[in-house]
C-alpha cells in the first residue's frame, strides 16, 4: 500500500522543508521530505532508535514520545509540523548513565519480555503520570469533578494506547503503580 511509483517521485524544494526542533534538550536542524513522520525523523535522520515502529498507524503505541511534554504517537505526526517544538524520547528520560525512577521500576518489576514496546510504554507512562498530577479524569473515573486516585483500573485504562504482545501488562501496572506512589 505504501509502495508504488509515488515513492520514487523526485523531491524538490516544494515538497521538503527545513525543520528545527529540540530533541532531548538539544536543538536539531534537518531538511526533510514533508512526508517524513517524527518517528522516521528520529530513527532515520537523528540516530535516535529508541522510539519504535510497530504498526505505523497509531494503534500500538510503541512510537510514543513526549511533544512539548505531552505523550503523542510520533508515527502520525509529520516532522514539518513540529518546527520550533520540543520532543523527548526514551533516550531523554534520564541521563546516559542513569535510569529514571520509572525505568528502574520497570526493571525491578520485570515489566517487559522482548522489550520492543518498552520505550513507548515508558514515554506513555511518563506523560500519563503528569496528566494524573494535573487532575485529568479518565473513562473509568467515577466522579469527573474530583481528582482520580490512581487505582490499577485507572492505570490500565490510561495505558490502553500501548500494546504489549508479550502481555507483560500486570508487571507494567505494578511498575507504574510503584513509581506513582513514590513520587
Amino acid at each position: 500500500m505504501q509502495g508504488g511509483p509515488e515513492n520514487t517521485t523526485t523531491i524538490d524544494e516544494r515538497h521538503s522543508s527545513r525543520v528545527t526542533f529540540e530533541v532531548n534538550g538539544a536543538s536539531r536542524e534537518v531538511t526533510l521530505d514533508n512526508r517524513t513522520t517524527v518517528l522516521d525523523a528520529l530513527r532515520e535522520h537523528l540516530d535516535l532508535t529508541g522510539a519504535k515502529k510497530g504498526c505505523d498507524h497509531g494503534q500500538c503505541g510503541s512510537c510514543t514520545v513526549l511533544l512539548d511534554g505531552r505523550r503523542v504517537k510520533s508515527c502520525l505526526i509529520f516532522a514539518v509540523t513540529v518546527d520550533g517544538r520540543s520532543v523527548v524520547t526514551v533516550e531523554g528520560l534520564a541521563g546516559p548513565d542513569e535510569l529514571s525512577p520509572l525505568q528502574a521500576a520497570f526493571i525491578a518489576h520485570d515489566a517487559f519480555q522482548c522489550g520492543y514496546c518498552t520505550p513507548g510504554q515508558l514515554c506513555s507512562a511518563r506523560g500519563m503520570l503528569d496528566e494524573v498530577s494535573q487532575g485529568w479524569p479518565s473513562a473509568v473515573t467515577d466522579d469527573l469533578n474530583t481528582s482520580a486516585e490512581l487505582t490499577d483500573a485507572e492505570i490500565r485504562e490510561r495505558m490502553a494506547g500501548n500494546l504489549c504482545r508479550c502481555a507483560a501488562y500486570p508487571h507494567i501496572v505494578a511498575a507504574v503503580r510503584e513509581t506513582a506512589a513514590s513520587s
Partner: protein
Amino acid sequence: MKAFRYHRPANVAEAVAVLAAEPQAAYLGGGTNLVDLMKLGVQRPDVLVDVTRLPLDTVEELPDGGLRIGATVRNSDLAAHPVVRRAYPVLARALLAAASGQLRNMATTGGNLLQRTRCVYFQDTGKACNKREPGSGCAALHGQNRDLAVLDWSEQCVATHPSDLAVALAALDTVVEVHEADGPRDIPIAEFYRSPGTHPERETTVARGALITAVRLPPLPAARRSTYLKVRDRASFAFAAGSVAAVLDLDGDVVRDVRLAYGAVAHRPWRAYRAEEALRGRPFSPELAARAADAELAEARPLRHNGFKLPLTRAITVRALTELASS
C-alpha cells in the same frame, strides 16, 4: 504516499483561501485520521494546510451560559476542562471513551467532527467504495458489515460515523461555526451531517474548503445530569459497537426534558427524536425507556451481520437513562 506541499497559514482567511485555490488541498489538524489515510493511499492531498497554530485553541464561557470551544482545542484538554466536567459531563465522557491518551492529546475538536468512517472497505483501496471512489460500488453492503449502519443507509453506502464527540454534541444541540470562502456561518449540528443517499462521498452540508472554527454549546442546565455510554469489543481503545449520549431532566419522576443521540448506527450521529418524544411528559421507568428506544429503532434495517445493534442500542438506552434517573 503522494508528495505534498506544506503550508502554515497566518490566519483563518488565508487558510480558507488556500483551500479555494488548491483543488487537492486538505486541512491538517491533529492528523490522527488524515495521516493514517494518507499512508493507506485513501486520501491523497497535494497540499496540507496546517491549522493547528491558528488562534482557535480556547474554551470560552459565553454570557448566555453556553460554551464556545475552539476548533483546535485538543480532545484531552476539552475532556479535562472544569466547566465541561461540571456542566456537560456527557461531553467529557464521550471524549474520554474515545481513542487513547496519546491520540486525545493530538486530536482536535474540528478534526474529530470531520473524521472519516472506519468501514474497512473505505480504508482498503483494493475494494469498491462509493465514498472513496464515487460510482465504484459498495463492497460492504453484502460483505462483512458487522460494524456498519442499521439506520438510514443507502444501496450506495452503509458506513457509520465513527466519532463519539459528535454524538454528544448532537444531543446537546451544538452549533458548528464554519468559515467558508464567502465568510463565517453557523450551522446547527442537526443540519451539519448528511445521509449517504446517492452521494456518500459528501459527508457534511458545508462546501469543500469550509473550515470549522469552533463549536458552540447552548446553555442547557439539564446537561449536568447527563452521560455517555459506549460499548466496545474490548474494554478500551476501540470504536463503538454501540453508544448513547443522554441528558435527562426529571420533575419528580416525570420526564420534563430528555436528549438522546446514538453512535455506531448511521452515517451521521443519530439524534433520537422519536425516543425523546416517547419519553417526554411521562413518568420515567426502565420499561418506558425500552419502548422509547424501540420507537426510535422501528425503521431500522439491519444488515446481515449487525442485527445485534438493535438490542444493544435498546439496552444501553435503558441503562444510561436508568442510571441518570437514579443519580
